[in-house]
């Protein structure tokens, strides 16, 4: 029936085509036009019928049909697909960064002593959970709900569009962005957890985590990624050498100072007691998990993969991230060998992680040799920084401060080497501003906790081990 009514139109098209094409091409040309029209008509009719069935008026149906045809012809699936790709990037990147929570847990349970392993596991589960809840409750809006050039967003919960209602006008779906950003916050809290391990009180640590993930991280995050004053000034921190890693490092440093060292760590006459970690394989596993997760951390910080240029950049970021980590590991290995003769594997683990932190501020612009250089310096930094911290009687159990704070500063400072749009001065201002805020604010929170809940367990509990004292479950029970 419909083929009959289309007849006159087909005739017209055929005549036009006859004028335009030679015989073989003609046959095809004619067919093409007819097919195009048939197809477009079908699309339009399908859309308008669907609209009618859903109870739309005739006009609305006609509009829906027109929109569908327009979308088809204008190739706007390109736009649809770009938005899907962008969202997919956040989801994949997000689950990779979420997986880093397991990486920190393995790294830290491997590097604390046997008697504090269950506690370290518990703290990491709890902090990841709290980070998610707090970043929904206020964090996201503190970070992204502010005005351009500002200092802080709004203290409101964050809402996602209703099911089926997300139109991805920002270029990606709302919830995928939240998910991806949330995983970053959790990483920051994990950094603190490792540094203050083996003596901090469980509930004080969790209280600190609430403030860190709900307020401290989001505030400095707002300054840059939330479009605040640092962003306006031209500070550059691609995936968070400073915004994530140094922030975690500063908060950890404040904690380490205020909580104090583990009992027995530093002897009276400058003696340092080594307190070897309980499981090297788990620490190594943790490092590999973090390394894997970092592809999400840096790669998805490109924030878009709906164009060939974007996914090309993501690929470049993957390669640079991997090579900086490799350089960090190799450089640390060589430095340890030269300085200490034996190759302490925990230093190499820290070296790889420092390589990763170093490249995070700018994983895109460096050439491969530059990425190798940036990562290698990061690796060397930790080898020398770890004993220095010890000499300063700062007891950082897993090396979080050298890896995340020092390498984070290094990575942020060196951005202008490869990224011409940045300046060393602005980088320094950003580092100092974020460092000062986070260190001071963290110190206040730690001191407030010290004055109220108390921040460290009793000496007896510490010597017994937190697993027995606070968790009640030994990590590796014997007979």
């Amino acid at each position, binding site marked *: 029936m419909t083929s009959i009514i289309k007849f006159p139109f087909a005739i017209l098209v055929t005549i036009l085509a006859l004028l335009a094409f030679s015989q073989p091409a003609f046959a095809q040309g004619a067919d093409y036009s007819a097919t195009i029209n048939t197809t477009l008509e079908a699309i339009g009719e399908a859309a308008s019928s669907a609209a009618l069935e859903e109870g739309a008026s005739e006009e609305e149906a006609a509009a829906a049909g027109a929109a569908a045809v327009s979308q088809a012809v204008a190739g706007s699936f390109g736009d649809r697909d770009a938005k899907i790709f962008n969202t997919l990037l956040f989801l994949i990147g997000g689950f990779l960064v979420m997986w880093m929570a397991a990486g920190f847990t393995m790294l830290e349970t491997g590097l604390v002593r046997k008697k504090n392993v269950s506690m370290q596991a518990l703290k990491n589960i709890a902090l990841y959970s709290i980070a998610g809840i707090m970043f929904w409750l206020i964090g996201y809006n503190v970070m992204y709900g502010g005005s351009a050039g500002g200092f802080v967003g709004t203290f409101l919960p964050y809402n996602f569009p209703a099911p089926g209602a997300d139109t991805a006008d920002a270029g990606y779906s709302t919830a995928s962005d939240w998910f991806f950003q949330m995983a970053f916050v959790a990483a920051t809290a994990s950094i603190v957890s490792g540094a203050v391990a083996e003596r901090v009180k469980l509930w004080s640590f969790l209280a600190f985590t609430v403030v860190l993930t709900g307020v401290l991280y989001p505030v400095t995050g707002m300054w840059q990624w939330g479009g605040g004053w640092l962003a306006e000034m031209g500070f550059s921190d691609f995936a968070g050498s400073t915004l994530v890693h140094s922030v975690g490092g500063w908060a950890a440093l404040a904690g380490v100072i205020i909580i104090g060292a583990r009992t027995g760590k530093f002897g009276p006459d400058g003696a340092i007691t*080594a307190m070897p970690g309980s499981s090297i394989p788990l620490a190594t596993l943790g490092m590999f998990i973090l390394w894997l997760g970092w592809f999400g951390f840096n790669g998805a910080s490109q924030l878009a993969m709906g164009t060939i240029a974007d996914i090309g950049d993501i690929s470049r970021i993957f390669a640079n991230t991997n090579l900086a980590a490799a350089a960090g590991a190799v450089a640390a290995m060589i430095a340890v060998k030269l300085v*200490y003769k*034996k190759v*302490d594997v925990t*230093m190499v683990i820290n070296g790889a992680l420092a390589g990763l932190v170093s490249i995070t501020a700018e994983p895109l612009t460096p050439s491969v040799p530059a990425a190798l250089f940036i990562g290698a310096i990061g690796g060397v930094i930790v080898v020398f920084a*770890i004993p220095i911290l*010890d000499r300063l009687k700062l007891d950082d159990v897993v090396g979080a401060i050298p890896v995340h704070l020092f390498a984070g500063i290094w990575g942020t400072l060196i951005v202008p080497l490869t990224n011409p749009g940045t300046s060393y001065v602005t980088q320094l201002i950003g580092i100092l501003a974020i460092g000062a805020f986070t260190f001071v604010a963290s110190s206040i929170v730690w001191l407030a906790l010290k004055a109220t809940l108390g921040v460290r367990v009793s000496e007896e509990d510490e010597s017994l081990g937190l697993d027995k004292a606070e968790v009640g479950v030994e990590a590796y029970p014997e007979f």
Partner: protein
Amino acid sequence: MKLLIAIIKPSRLEEVRTALTDLDVHGMTVSEVKGYGRQKGHSEIYRGAEYAVNFLPKLKIEIAIEASQLAAATEAVREAANSGRIGDGKIFVLDLEQATRIRTGETGAAAL
């Protein structure tokens, strides 16, 4: 009866076991211990901090034997455990007043 306690290097367990079996000593109890004597520990470095490893891993072997077997057993253990290097260990001998086999209640030499 005597209780012979030997502290040996972990790698020598098989040799000692075989030597004793050859002597018709058919029982022993082993545990992991750490110790030092002439062979002092050494220092290791962990994350840049030097620390003393005072204790080295050893195995402690306890063997209950009849007094008559003592000399032969001591000699057998000594030979089997001897690598000629420092840290080879010690043999201590205590007097064993009484021995009972739990399953049967036998006592004395019959219980060994």
